Every structure is written in C-alpha cells, then in structure tokens.
C-alpha cells in the first residue's frame, strides 16, 4: 500500500513509520504543521522547529520522502475554535480527540487519498483487528500506553484507512527498537501537554483568548462566597488546585469545583462526595460500525485518556444522543469530556458528555 506515515518528531511515530517500511509499504513521511503561531522556535510540544527537524531526520534514516503539510488553518477552524467555544460554554473539551477526528484521520487522510495514498499510519498505541463485519479498533497490549480512547471518535471508514503498527508493542520495546534502528529520537521524552499550549498553562491560554472577569467562588451547599476567581473560564469540575480559598470548609475537608456557571461567572465548590455521579447523557455520538449493532454490546465506558474503564449500560435517546448508566459511582465528570464505549477491549464508539446525573 501507499501509506502516509504521520511523523510528529517523536519516537513512537518514527518506529511506526519504520515498521510500515519493513512491512513492504511504499511510505511517505509527513509532518503536520498545526500551530497557530508557527515555528517561532523554542519551547516543546508538537509544533516546534525541533520536532520538524527530528521528523525529517527520522525520514532520512528510513530512506523515505518527507514533507511538511500545512493544516494550521484547518486546525484553527476545527480543533482550536471548538476548544475555545467549549470552554466559553463551560465545558471541558479534549482537543487531541478532536484533532484525531477532524485533522489526522479526516483532513490528512482525505488529502492523502486524493493524492493517491491508501492509508495513514500513526504511532498511536491501539490495535486494528479484522472482525466478521470489518476492521475493529481494540486496546493496545500495553495498558499504560493504550491510546484507543483518543481514537474512539473514528468511524469505520476512517479505521479502514488507518494503520497503527505499535498496538502490539510495549513502550519499552518501542524505545529499544528505536535505539537499535539508530533513530536519534529513541530517548526523546514523551509529550504530555496539549501541543498548542506548550507551557501547560491552559487557563492562561484561555484567559488570553477569551478574557473574562474575576468573580465569586461560592460554596454550593451554603451559598456563601468563599473566594474569588480570576475568570471562570478554564476551571473544570473536579479541580482543586488554583482556587486559593481563604476560609477552610466547616468540616475541614478539601473542596473541589463541583460546577461552573459561565452565565453568572460563578465557580461552585463542594465536598468530594458531591462529585460522584451514577450516569450522564451524551451527544455527538460516533460509532466504529453500525450503531444499531454496536450500541447493545457496550459493557464499559472510559471517561478520560488515562482513567480506568467503568462498567456501564448505554440507552439511546435519539439518533446522536443517549444515556449512560454507570455500575459504580465515578468522580469528577465534566461536560465536554469524551466518553468512549467498549466491549471488553474493543472500542465501539464515543459521545460527548453533556450533563451528569447523581
């Protein structure tokens, strides 16, 4: 197959590309330019000149062609604008999931296919398994690196044109393989932050772009004002740090954000018990195959990239919405987060959390 290997400049995508070459594919390396302020140098994250350099050198060592594809405008119009809009409305989005849905396995894949490529390969840790009804997305064998969650928004067409060569490997094996292959990025640290916020200060990023006035932090139970926030935007349910509450809670226990009301610019705090939910509603449903076949199979849901899955039941309430009932309480569920549905290790689909019920 003719394959575009997305090269981020990191070790995973370099080894993934190497394996695609070894598998006999005709591989072209592509680095995606996504950043808003492009290549100003310095810093970390996916959009620095250093990463372009590392990606290019990986392609050199693999003997494959290399290009930089500029998707900055598309990234801005989909991932970044959605990121800001979700926060503006008091939700907590996952831009990496969005990027997979709209950029890596949409814009990039469409461009690749138009240019005569058959598939896009990435360094995600997930497995594609041939099932009776087509290709299935499964968890990676390395539970600490499994990235099936962030791929849970891909549909059958996207999965059919994707390759994830690292799904059967452990991270340590991938690093060893990179070193054995002489790839210079073998020791490069993993990236953790949101790529377009390299300093990790999401709230500062949001304040710069969305503004916002300071407002009250209110104890939900008593209604008493217990502090002041510098702007409600960017505060997330379940968050404890950065509140700077002067008065301790009457029971002396830590208080967490339990609600953010953007319309009144109020952050509500409460005890940890208040964070526990038994279920929630979802919209923006996406399925890895026919929804009528997959929805009844759901037995687990995962609510964050690195959270343990929870036993759950799904009940559709419309074409693109539904209710999820959890078998046990789950703490700190914020609207905007992506819920990914599993049957054991198999990803069935996903939805965006809209509201939570106690």
């Amino acid at each position, binding site marked *: 197959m003719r394959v575009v290997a997305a090269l981020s400049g990191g070790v995973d995508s370099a080894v993934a590309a190497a394996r695609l070459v070894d598998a006999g594919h005709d591989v*072209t390396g592509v680095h995606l330019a996504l950043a808003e302020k*492009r*290549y100003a140098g310095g810093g970390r994250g996916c959009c620095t000149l250093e990463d*372009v350099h590392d990606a290019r050198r990986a392609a050199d060592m693999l003997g494959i*062609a290399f*290009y930089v594809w500029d998707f900055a405008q598309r990234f801005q119009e989909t991932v970044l604008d959605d990121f800001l809009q979700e926060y503006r409305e008091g939700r907590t989005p996952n831009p990496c999931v969005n990027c997979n849905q709209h950029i890596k396995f949409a814009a990039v894949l469409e461009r690749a296919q*138009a*240019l005569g490529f058959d598939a896009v390969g990435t360094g995600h840790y997930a497995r594609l398994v041939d099932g009776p009804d087509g290709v299935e997305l499964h968890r990676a064998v390395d539970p600490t690196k499994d990235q099936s969650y962030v791929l849970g928004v891909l549909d059958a067409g996207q999965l059919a044109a994707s390759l994830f060569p690292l799904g059967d490997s452990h991270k340590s094996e991938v690093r060893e393989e990179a070193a054995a292959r002489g790839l210079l990025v073998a020791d490069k640290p993993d990236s953790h932050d949101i790529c377009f916020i390299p300093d990790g200060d999401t709230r500062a990023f949001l304040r710069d772009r969305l503004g916002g006035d300071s407002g009250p932090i209110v104890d939900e139970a008593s209604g008493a004002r217990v502090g002041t926030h510098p702007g409600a935007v960017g505060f997330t349910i379940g968050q404890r740090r950065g509140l700077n509450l002067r008065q301790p809670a009457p029971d002396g226990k830590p208080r967490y954000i339990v609600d953010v009301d953007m319309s009144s610019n109020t952050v509500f705090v409460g005890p940890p018990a208040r964070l526990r939910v038994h279920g929630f509603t979802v919209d923006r449903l996406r399925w890895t195959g026919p929804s009528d076949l997959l929805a009844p199979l759901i037995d687990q849901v995962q609510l964050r990239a690195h959270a343990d899955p929870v036993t759950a039941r799904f009940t559709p309430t419309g074409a693109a919405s539904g209710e999820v009932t959890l078998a046990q309480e789950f703490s700190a569920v914020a609207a905007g987060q992506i819920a990914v549905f599993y049957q054991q290790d198999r990803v069935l689909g996903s939805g965006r959390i809209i509201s939570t019920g106690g």
Partner: protein
Amino acid sequence: MHYLDHAATTALRPEALAAMQRQWQQVGNPSSLHNAGRQARRTVEESREQIADLIGAKPADIVFTSGGTEADNLAVKGIARSGSKRRVLISAVEHHAVLDPADALVQEGFLVERIPVDADGRVDLVALASLLDDEVALVAVMWANNEVGTIEPIAEIAQMCAQRGIPLHSDAVQILGDPQFEVAAVPSVALSAHKVGGPVGVGALVLDRNLDVKPLIHGGGQERDVRSGTLDAAGIAGFAAALAAPAVDTRPLRDELITGIRQAVPDAILNGDPVRRLANNAHFSFPGCPGDALLMLLDAAHVAVSTGSACTAGIPQPSHVLMAMGADEAAARSSLRFSLGWNSTGEDVLAAVDALPKAVERARRAGGRR
C-alpha cells in the same frame, strides 16, 4: 532523476571541480607574504580578472563574499548606512536576501518603500520616477526575478538613478551565466557562484569603487577593507572556471518546456514576462492545485521542481512575487517553477511534461483539503 530546479542550485561544472581540486592541493593564504601566499593570491586575482572580463566589469570592483545573500546584505545595509539619506526603495518582487536586510534597516530609522510591479512582474517605471527624490539613499531592483523569470528594465532604471546620483543595487544572481549579461552602468551587483555551476559559499558584490559602503564583516579587511575573512582561493577559482565554461543556451529547451506544459495542462498560466524572461525559467500557475501537492507528486515521479520559497520548517509560503503581481493567495499557492541548467536534456523536459497531467488531476482533487 529529472532535475528541473537549477534556479535553486545547479550541478557543479567539471571545469569548476578541476579548478578547485588544483587549488585545494596547495597550501597558502592569499594574504600571506611568502611564495605560498603569493601563489594563492595569484589564483584569486586571475579568477577576479577572468570573472570581471566575462561580465564586463573592472577587476578592482569585485568584492568576493560568501555568496549572493551576503553580497545583497552588504550592498543594501552597507550603502544605506554610508550616508545621511534615509529613504530606501526596493522592488516589491526582490529576493529575501534584499527584502530582509531592507526590513532590518527600518529598525535603524530608514523609510523603506516598495516599488510596484505590473502583472508580469516588471517594475513600474512611472511609479519609480515618482518615488525618486534627493532623500533616496539606495534603489534596489533585481536584474531578473528568481521566481517568475521576468528580466527587469535595469538599463532604464540605472539611467533614472544615475541622473539623480542615486546608487542602484541589482541582484543579478539568476541572470549570471547568460552570455548577454554585462554589469554595465549598474554600480552595485550581487552574484553567486553556485547558480552557474560553481561551488556554494562563494559570491561577489561588483561594487563601483566610487561608492561608499560600510562593511558588515570586520576583521582583516582582505577585500578592499569592505569585507573581511580569509579569501577562499579554491572556491573563487571554481567560480571563475564555472563562469568561463562554455555557455549553454537553454532557450530552445525552455520553449519546448513551456509549449509542452501548455499542451499537457491547457489551463496552466505562464507567469512572468513571456518574452523578456530568463533563458532557463518556466513558471506556471495551475488553478485549483496546491503547489506543495504538485511538487510532492512530481517528486514521486522523479521530477524535481520548486514552489518558490518555503519557511524554515519546510512549508511552502504564498509567493510574495505573485502577490505583488496581483495574484490572490490561492493563486500564489498554486504555482510551480521549472528551471533548466547547463546539463538539462530533452528527456528532463519530456519527463516533466509527461508527469504533469496526472499530478495536476490528483493535486486538484486534494485542492481544498488543507
């Protein structure tokens, strides 16, 4: 591989390689006073005289530099800084080697103004006349455009500037090698060796000795106290040998290329002046095709072409040249430069023309997907 990017850099001419090999085997700094130094100096001076003869310049006017970019920097910043006048006029289609030093002068209090061009990329002489006054420290107009290949009316511009006593600098990097090229009455001209089959890292500023210029690089004053640094005798010998090598007229191949592209892709648009253009340049817009996609597809078909300038990361940028010629951003992103060189063949042209229709069709499908 069918290399059609000779305007970026061309293959080393065997004559240049031989001249450099001869000199590399000799020890000697051209500034040293002993025999070894004198022999190296002799190579430099013979090369200087040979280059001067080939371009109609005086040997004493030639200041060797590390390349065209340094020559442009030295001219733009060096001439502007040498006097008290504060206006600098540059054409809107200059190479970044002129644009960027001019922009740097803005930080020093200079007023830098762009001279507009017409739809073919030719400098608007009426506009230039209206911009010239006694406060102008320097005018910079390239001899021929590196992207679209248009040859500028340099003789007229030189005359207009000379009448007012204003120094004119011209980047002649792309036209050097054309047998008709002579520096004539232009007081400051930038040249580069690797565009004519010499080595990368060697260039020259042909600078009228009567023109004041502030050096950029201090430390030894080897070149007329205008430029410092040990002279690269081997590189300079390679430069002269490349320039002296038998000229190759690429016009017939260029015309074949232009005709072939027009037949292969009927809606392709030739950019730049159709007549007064570089002998090795064919520059086309392919409506609806992202240039970077075309480049990639041709690259896969072993045809090497250029989209114009790319940023440091390797992302093609919309051409400021085409924008100055009136193109919109989409059009400025959908063009390719094909450039021929001394070792280009009819097969190279055929390979490009053959590969284009399929590449254009595919790139067009990828058109809006960015």
